[in-house]
């Protein structure tokens, strides 16, 4: 799904109503929707998906990977901004 153009990273905000899981630049975000496992990489097309229960995995630009379980959620990609709303 990645385009050929430039961005090398994505800006990710992953949060639940009362918890911020991750906020910052990342190389990828992986989760699962009704179709199966998917990855969001830099240059991903605009995207809107409902997340299925399971693990969300984020690979930050710096630091250790972040992973957490979600019961449900929504992920949206607009340009290089990725927003993940979990456990609603």
């Amino acid at each position: 799904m990645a385009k050929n153009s430039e961005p090398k990273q994505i800006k990710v905000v992953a949060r639940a109503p009362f918890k911020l899981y991750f906020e910052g630049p990342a190389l990828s975000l992986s989760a699962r929707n009704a179709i199966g496992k998917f990855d969001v990489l830099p240059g991903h097309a605009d995207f809107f998906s409902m997340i299925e229960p399971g693990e969300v995995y984020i690979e930050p630009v710096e630091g250790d990977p972040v992973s957490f379980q979600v019961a449900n959620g929504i992920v949206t990609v607009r340009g290089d901004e990725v927003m993940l709303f979990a456990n609603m």
Partner: protein
Amino acid sequence: MRRASLIEKDAESIGTLKDLTNVFESLASTQVAKMKGKVLESQDFFGLLWERYTSLRIDPKRRLTNREGVGNNGRNAIILISAEAGLSGDLDARVIETMQSENDLSKTDIVVLGSHGASQLTQRGLKYSRFFKLPESDDFIDVSPVIKAVLPYERIRVYYEEYVSLGSQIVKSIDLVSRIADMSDKYEAGTMTDYDTIFEPSLEEIAEQMEETMMRIALSQTILQSALAQAASRFNAMTMAEDRAGELLGEYRREFHRAKRSESDRRLREVLVGIKKKRRDSAAAGA
């Protein structure tokens, strides 16, 4: 006049009560601060989510909020959000009174959240069709069973308490269905359509799920708002109870001192009477 020892015992009980109300007041104050933080956090979260939701262009005919074939013989649903326990002043009573005054309850099915509201309804002879306990955790409010129960209704009105300030909490109501529809109508810029966005599953399937999700979220927000208002109301009730206990303690102390003085006066009178009697007796014996 009551005996000083009895008054002292009563005063001790009032003192304990005052200490207890003071503890409850502190607890309520902590709860207010905690809930306030949660409400702000969730408002921020929901604000971002609303923004994403309202950017979806959904065919109005496919909207859950415009769905056909709903309605339980023209009956409407009311969701009444109350406290799980008492000690929150008259807030739940006010919610019920407002609900009663604004609706024809013969054409309405009441779904009540919180044991206190359910018992207050029963006391007033008002029937409710469903009862749900309030979620125990504020961290993940699962209102799916409530939404499932009210989805067949065309109109779904939520009555709840809203925090204005520590000294003021008001009764509010929202139409859950039109609130979702309104939100979706307002947003114009930055729309996401299936021409420029990948939807998984399809936009239609997402649209169906999203409206229900947004309804859940709107309801969760009212539950949080209500919990904050109840904590504030509890704080006020405890402050008033502590003040009243303080006044009562003052009254008991004054009564205690009066009783003590009266008892010592009586004893003194008895001694004087005894001395007089003795003098009289010895004078009579001398004569």
